[in-house]
């Protein structure tokens, strides 16, 4: 399942920055995100609202619309930087090489065309085939994703499908060109738990059949635990922890990941009191200085208000972006000098830093 460490990643995202320039200010939706996707694996990007996880996915495919703009970074797909591709080149990459599947099957399907028409159209956009071949392939795909009686349901309209079946139809569309990479953005969030289990079951079979690598974007740690090989935890527009799924759930290194693990209600545990993460999810137009988690963090110190920690290896195969994470090993002098230089220095920093460096 999981790739070898020395293998070349299928996708390599480095320091991706996407901003939205709105009347209310600049939204730092993606603020220096970095992660890799390896061959045949499922990578989970987990985060709450405002973590930038969905915009990260859209940025990778250059699907960010005005007033949003990808400011910098690279998205290397098998060595090529996708951010340098023209719109025409991107159009042939989307769907063929990297396909995307969205959350809401209600709004992603057009109510006035049959489901079969919509899947066929995707096939014909990317491949030079006859109507009859496209229809045949559509029926085959519908069977693949577990839609019963595909030969008759191919002529149904979206409203004749249940929520789960619509999500399956979207999945059929996404895999219609046998993509190398599938990005699934909250594919089951609108669905009941028993239907969710069915969809992930199908996804698993398809991954095996077509040999896809998958990026799964979700807010649900249970889904991550059950489906992913590796995980990137997003907070405040960037990745704050990366690890293999077992390692992450056994011993999370970043205080935010640990806070999440403490705060989720568990089926196996009936303690009355939960331990929430204090405070609120950050506002992306006004991210805190230094480490964006510091106002909510039980381990935050003065350095955390000024120094913005990058993602660093804390043990082989694991990374965290926290000065205090075990294994982070950053010298105090580096923290002090770089903390002062941190760009866009927030009003809080000078005093703290000045005091610390004396």
């Amino acid at each position, binding site marked *: 399942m999981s790739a070898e460490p020395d293998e070349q990643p299928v996708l390599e995202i480095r320091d991706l920055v996407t901003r939205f320039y709105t009347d209310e200010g600049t939204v730092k939706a993606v603020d220096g995100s970095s992660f890799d996707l390896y061959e045949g694996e499922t990578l989970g990007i987990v985060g709450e609202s405002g973590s930038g996880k969905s915009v990260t996915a859209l940025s990778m495919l250059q699907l960010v619309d005005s007033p949003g703009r990808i400011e910098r970074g690279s998205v290397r797909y098998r060595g090529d930087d996708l951010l340098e591709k023209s719109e025409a080149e991107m159009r042939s990459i989307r769907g063929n090489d990297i396909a995307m599947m969205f959350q809401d099957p209600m709004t992603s399907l057009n109510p006035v065309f049959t489901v079969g028409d919509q899947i066929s159209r995707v096939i014909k956009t990317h491949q030079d085939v006859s109507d009859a071949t496209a229809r045949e392939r559509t029926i085959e795909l519908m069977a693949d994703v577990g839609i019963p009686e595909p030969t008759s349901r191919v002529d149904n309209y979206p409203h004749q499908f249940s929520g789960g079946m619509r999500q399956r139809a979207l999945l059929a569309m996404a895999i219609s060109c046998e993509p190398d990479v599938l990005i699934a953005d909250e594919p089951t969030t609108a669905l009941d738990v028993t239907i969710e289990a069915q969809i992930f079951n199908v996804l698993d079979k398809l991954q095996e059949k077509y040999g896809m690598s998958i990026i799964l974007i979700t807010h649900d*740690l249970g889904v991550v635990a059950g489906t992913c090989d590796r995980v990137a935890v997003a907070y405040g527009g960037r990745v704050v922890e990366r690890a293999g799924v*077992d390692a992450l759930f056994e011993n999370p290194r970043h205080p935010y990941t640990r806070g999440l693990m403490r705060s989720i209600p568990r089926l196996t545990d009936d303690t009355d009191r939960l331990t929430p993460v204090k405070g609120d*999810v950050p506002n992306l137009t006004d991210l805190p200085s230094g480490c964006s988690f510091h106002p909510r963090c*039980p381990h935050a110190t003065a350095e955390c208000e000024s120094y913005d920690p990058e993602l660093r290896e804390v043990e*082989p195969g694991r990374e965290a972006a926290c000065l205090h994470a075990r294994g982070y090993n950053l010298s105090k002098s580096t923290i002090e000098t770089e903390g002062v230089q941190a760009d866009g220095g927030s009003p809080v920093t000078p005093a703290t830093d000045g005091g610390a460096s004396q």
Partner: protein
Amino acid sequence: MSDDPLLSVSGLHKYFTQNDGFIDRLLGADETVKAVNGVSFDIERGETLGLVGESGSGKSTTARSVLRLDEPTKGTVSYDGTDLTALSDREMTEMRKRIQIVFQDPASSLNRRKTVGQIIKQPMEIHGLYEGERDARVDELMETVGLPPQYSNRYPHEFSGGQRQRVGIARALAVDPDFIVADEPVSALDVSIQAQILNLLEDLQAEFDLTLLFIAHDLSVIRHVCDRVAVMYLGEIVELADADELFSNPQHPYTRALLGAIPQPVPELARQRQVLEGEVPSPLDPPSGCSFNPRCPEATEECTSVDPTLDDVAGATGGHQAACIHVDEFEVGAGVPSAAQDVDERFSIENFDAEPTLATDGRGRSGGDDDR
């Protein structure tokens, strides 16, 4: 069970018909959706009863019918000895001083043209309560739910989702009710915020002696909040038991399937997730016999004709009830698979710096995944 429950619902039905429109009547269409189909339960004073089910199970309609936000088609709702279904509108309005509701989506249930102070004050104005001391009470309520009282002049959009839900809770508390219906109060919130609101509800219940009807689709949330749980499927209660009982010894095949389908945030358990095939049937055309029979792994020929009633499970304690003809005798087990995960300790703040006690170096772990 005591002889004096605060709320006693008996044989509650709520049908929606599609012949409400003129054209439908003209064409003689009379399709009926039995959204709630004969539901009975009691809620003791000070207790939290959880109502859990998937979409289309009728859990929200049950709650709305209890409050007469939807008029029940049939059945009685006895609240502290008074049958709510028999009350006039004026009497029911009077009753609403004692019964309040917290809605799912704090964004759409708060009037965005009013300040949160006005929103919290409104129930007191409607019921003519706390004349002359309303502003002071607004401040006090805001403090109670963890909001700074100086924010009472702000509008809902200036608050985060979690804070808006606190406003919704303060509004429900304004008239000092005995009974609160919480309809999916945390499902629109982020995980790190959910726990804050659940703890708040717990605190308020103790402080104000509240009785709660808590509706949720998330069984993990239910487990933490509820004393007893009713599981609904297609308009009926299929199992009713003490929370601990339900999670460790579920009797109905649907409850078992539902528990097995939940991905727990523990990789070795989440990978064993069970898949229940099929979908909830259309309530316009429910299956004959037991409504779960088309999806049930235990179903027999008999299940397609016999409609099971909610009965005490033989050999069970604490009023454990199930609606399944194959539940003859209480069976221990079949509950939530559990793992040796001492969550409190492992993820504790104190252990942040501790050496990992378990292997994280990728050697021979189940699932065989390397860290990278």
